[in-house]
């Protein structure tokens, strides 16, 4: 349910008094906009919880007034922040950037600052960080702690996937396909995943790096004449098989990794169209 400005006004007054410590009777218009966005962010958190409860038949839809909705929403944002911090601290214990500076800076340096500076009261909509390390699945219009939660969950899935392989293998695959991967702003999961799937397509051991000329030819032949959707579905089946074989039942892992399959399928088809002018498949 949405609230009118008249209903939200007392909430804005309350938050403004808190912001100014009751020491100022006026604020800049931009500040008022920021505080109003903060209020709406918290109310949205409340409404998401409310909608979930209604969908789950846990209770009937209640007409909470704006102040109640805001306060409950603010509590939810706080709880999400605590949960995200716990997730982050667990992630840090075994986090491996595999030598990639952007990965390290984003996760180790960036997020430690986030939890010090995230402003639940006056700017919960601002997740502060630039999130430079690119995850496979873009954040869908999320902001604030919602964006952070989604991002950390994705990083956790990536770390889980990468830890399936010996560290040395991950570094070799990355270095083979991207010699300067330590300095590039790139996703580390994608080359490792694509290498694994190519090995499965070629029925060859994962550890074998690089591919031989005949293997490149075989990849081109496999993709030749395929439609992108058809090849993507085939790759997703392989991915599903890979996850099953590694015995990894992490919720969301398949959904996360399959986000790479669209682009992977397109690149394979492009390679098959360029072959033999282009003799090597570049991830």
């Amino acid at each position, binding site marked *: 349910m949405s609230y009118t*400005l*008249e209903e939200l*006004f007392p909430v*804005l*007054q309350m938050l*403004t*008094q808190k912001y100014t410590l009751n*020491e*100022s*009777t*006026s*604020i*800049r*218009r*931009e*500040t*008022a*906009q920021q505080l*109003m*966005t903060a209020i709406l962010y918290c109310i949205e958190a409340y409404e998401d919880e409310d909608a979930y409860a209604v969908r789950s038949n846990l209770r009937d839809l209640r007409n909470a007034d704006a102040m109640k909705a805001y306060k409950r929403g603010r509590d939810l944002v706080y709880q999400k922040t605590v949960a995200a911090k716990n997730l982050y601290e667990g992630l840090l214990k075994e986090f491996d950037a595999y030598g990639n500076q952007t990965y390290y800076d984003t996760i180790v340096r960036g997020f430690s600052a986030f939890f010090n500076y995230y402003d639940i009261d006056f700017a919960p909509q601002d997740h502060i960080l630039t999130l430079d390390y690119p995850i496979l699945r873009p954040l869908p219009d999320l902001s604030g702690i919602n964006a952070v939660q989604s991002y950390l969950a994705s990083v956790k899935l990536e770390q889980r996937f990468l830890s399936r392989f010996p560290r040395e293998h991950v570094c070799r695959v990355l270095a083979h396909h991207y010699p300067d991967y330590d300095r590039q702003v790139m996703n580390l999961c994608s080359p490792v995943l694509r290498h694994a799937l190519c090995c499965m397509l070629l029925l060859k051991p994962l550890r074998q790096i690089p591919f031989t000329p005949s293997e490149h030819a075989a990849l081109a032949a496999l993709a030749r004449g395929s439609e992108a959707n058809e090849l993507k579905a085939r790759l997703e089946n392989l991915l599903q098989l890979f996850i099953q074989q590694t015995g990894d039942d992490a919720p969301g892992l398949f959904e996360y990794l399959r986000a790479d399959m669209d682009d992977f399928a397109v690149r394979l088809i492009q390679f098959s169209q360029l072959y033999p002018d282009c003799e090597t498949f570049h991830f």
Partner: protein
Amino acid sequence: MNQLSFTTALQGQRYSQFQKIIACNSLTAQYGLRLSPEDTELLLLSREQALKDQNRIELSEGILPRLIETFCDSPYIHQDTYAQTLADLQELFYIYKNESLDLLTDDELLAFMREQFDGICCGDTDYLGGTCLDRFAQAARAGYDGYQATGGKGMYEQFSQEQHWDHQLFLEVLRELIQ
């Protein structure tokens, strides 16, 4: 949330603000100062324009009652210029809340304004805005925070750039006149 939305929501406060300002007459009457309903209405219009010009919003009762309370016993405020002086002071208040980057509390800014208004400005609001407030705001922006300890009082001397009358200067001029 656009400007029109905020403006519409704030219009509901107008009657309450009007009443609060009229109620200040009971305090200011002892100094021979009184705002008529017409004066009050003009002051509120002046307030709205000043807030709009400075891109600020007041969500509560506003600064006018506090401004009246702070300045009503100033020797430089008289009934015939009362409303206009309040309008000028109000405008200066909003301008310098912005210019000081909101680093000053309302109390600190009001205390500074009153002290300088009665002191070197001798009731001249143009002089107040063009010198004292400008320099004070600059100092605040540059990181000066001495006003926090004094509540905005007793600090302008360190920022003053004009030579003012003081006891020694007065005696020198007197000797010259006598000779």
